[in-house]
């Protein structure tokens, strides 16, 4: 048994990368009227020369047929614009031999180098890869990171949506049964799941106003109805509302059932499969992170969101959680493209979290009404410090 496993794993190890990463052999030689393919280049490496058939090629899968015309063993390299990073290489090209380098190259500036005798810097020349109108070629490792980020973000959204539905059910039950203290305790906790995926929830233009509209956003005079979380919030925390008339049990049931129906509908759409399935392109994930932080700046830090319960800091934390998860989903990709930005974003997220942590109280946070202007100033500064680099995220990961 053990031996079979060993043999099988060795075989798999040898074959798997080939299947995963094989590439078209360029049709060299047989010139079937197609003319010379601009991505198929030839290189002649002699004792003191390195001759390329072209110093320019369109982005995509390039092949270099490297022929050793000298008498010593040679190597050929395609190097990045820094002259250090190896994009591709072929080694051990004996005299009179031709070897092929196949490599997927994005637009940019490069260097080619032949290394007769396999020592030193080699004979170098600049090489340009131009923009290609063909579908943008993404290297295998980037594609893997993208696929992974999309899958992770999808499951995060679905998980949060599931928990939102679960907690909303409990909350509505408590509220309709008149257990106000317990309902008040669950209110900010259930809403956390909404706030973490707020940018996705908001993308459903019909559901969002029914679920999360604030009183100030609703034109009651024009006959618009105010429903959802904040309608119930006002009924549970009527202290600040002058001359407020409490809802009757029947009205409670109406608003409660309506909220649960809308959250159920939202969860169904988030879980949809097939043609209706939500997609999370990499730029949407990055923009989601930016959007969630904007939510913080616009609503939470001002105390407008939870006008009656004053549990704004729960929402604040949840928005930051969601922004951070979205950012961390694309972090691997960003590290390959702009490591300095990745480092800065991680540091600023940490700094913002540190500020928020100062206002924790038990399992939750202090109420917004307990904050001094100096406290909100501190929070605003940390949010602003993060939003500037974060605004560059989408451009960096899609470059």
């Amino acid at each position: 048994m053990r031996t079979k496993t060993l043999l099988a794993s060795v075989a798999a190890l040898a074959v798997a990368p080939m299947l995963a990463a094989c590439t078209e052999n360029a049709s060299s030689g047989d010139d079937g009227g197609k003319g010379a393919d601009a991505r198929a280049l030839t290189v002649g490496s002699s004792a003191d020369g390195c001759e390329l058939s072209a110093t320019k090629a369109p982005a995509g899968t390039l092949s270099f047929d490297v022929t050793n015309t000298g008498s010593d063993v040679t190597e050929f390299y395609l190097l990045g614009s820094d002259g250090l990073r190896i994009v591709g290489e072929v080694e051990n090209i004996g005299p009179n031999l031709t070897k092929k380098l196949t490599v997927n190259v994005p637009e940019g500036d490069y260097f080619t180098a032949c290394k007769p005798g396999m020592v030193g810097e080699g004979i170098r020349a600049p090489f340009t890869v131009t923009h290609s109108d063909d579908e943008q070629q993404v290297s295998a490792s980037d594609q893997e990171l993208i696929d992974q980020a999309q899958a992770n973000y999808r499951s995060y959204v679905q998980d949060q949506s599931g928990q939102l539905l679960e907690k909303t059910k409990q909350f509505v039950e408590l509220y309709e049964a008149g257990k106000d203290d317990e309902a008040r305790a669950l209110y900010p906790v259930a809403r956390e799941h909404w706030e973490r995926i707020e940018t996705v929830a908001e993308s459903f233009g019909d559901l969002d106003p029914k679920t999360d509209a604030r009183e100030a956003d609703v034109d009651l005079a024009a006959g618009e109805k105010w429903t959802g979380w904040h309608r119930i919030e006002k009924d549970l925390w009527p202290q600040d509302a002058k001359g407020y008339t409490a809802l009757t049990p029947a009205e409670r049931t109406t608003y409660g059932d309506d909220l649960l129906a809308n959250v159920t509908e939202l969860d169904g759409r988030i879980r949809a499969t097939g043609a209706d399935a939500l997609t999370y392109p990499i730029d949407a994930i990055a923009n989601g992170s930016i959007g969630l932080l904007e939510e913080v700046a616009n609503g939470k830090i001002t105390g407008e969101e939870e006008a009656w319960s004053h549990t704004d800091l729960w929402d604040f934390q949840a928005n930051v959680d969601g922004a951070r998860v979205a950012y961390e989903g694309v972090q691997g990709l960003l590290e390959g493209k702009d490591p300095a930005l990745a480092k800065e974003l991680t540091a600023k997220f940490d700094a913002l979290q540190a500020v928020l942590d100062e206002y924790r109280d038990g399992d939750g946070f202090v109420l917004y009404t307990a904050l001094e202007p100096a406290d909100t100033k501190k929070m605003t500064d940390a949010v602003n410090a993060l939003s500037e680099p974060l605004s560059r995220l989408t451009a960096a990961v899609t470059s």
Partner: protein
Amino acid sequence: MLANLLIGLREGLEAALVVSILVAYLVKTERRELLPRIWLGVGIAVAVALGFGAALTFGPRGLTFEAQEAIGGSLSIVAVAFVTWMIFWMSTAARGLGAELRGQIDRAADGGRWSLVVVAVLAVGREGLETALFLWAATQAGTRDTIGSVTPTWEPLVGALLGILVAVALGHLIYRGAIRLDLSAFFTWTGAFLILVAAGVLAYGIHDLQEAGILPGLHALAFDVSDAIAPSSWYGTLLKGVFNFSPATTWLEATAWVLYVVPVGGLFLLRTRSKRPTPPSPQLQEH
């Protein structure tokens, strides 16, 4: 001619050395019946490498640079694990020879005996794909039309094959020498030698992964003696072929080499020392 011969020599040497030591061990411990497994492993590796090489050279699809580095790097590291296993398997199995009955050992070591096939496959297959691609390219060179200043010639193929033959001959010489040693000297010397070979393979695997950009530090060199030891010279070729010595070695490679040699070598010394005080068994003296 010489340059292509040296490439064939270098590619063939490491495999030939590991296989010849394994064969010498089986012959010395009178387990010739296990030899077919070694040849089976060698045969599988050669057939698979030549098959893949031909498919990749003449078929519609080739390997990307990334895939080549990934295969080379990961196979190197797996090969190190197996050669390390082999060193300790040999010393354990040999130590038990005098004390226990042969049948018991053979039954106990059955899993290990099949692993011999894996060791042979890895020793030959690790560089095998690259060698096969080289050989097919050399074959193409003999049949192609003139490219620029390069005229068709069979010289690269002949050179590479001669190099492989020299490697096999050197392997055979090692075998002849090893077979004359008494068993405990055989273990001390071949074991120590194989540890250095395996450490070289590990460092080379690390270098592959650095070139592929998976590991950092490709340009942080611990030392560079390329001027003194040219990689395409015959002595550079031998050092590379036997110990995977690279004249320009990065810090990460050097660190991995030391981190392998020190504990494995230390453990190996402890085990061979602890064997000394026990008087040689009658069976061992026969050799």
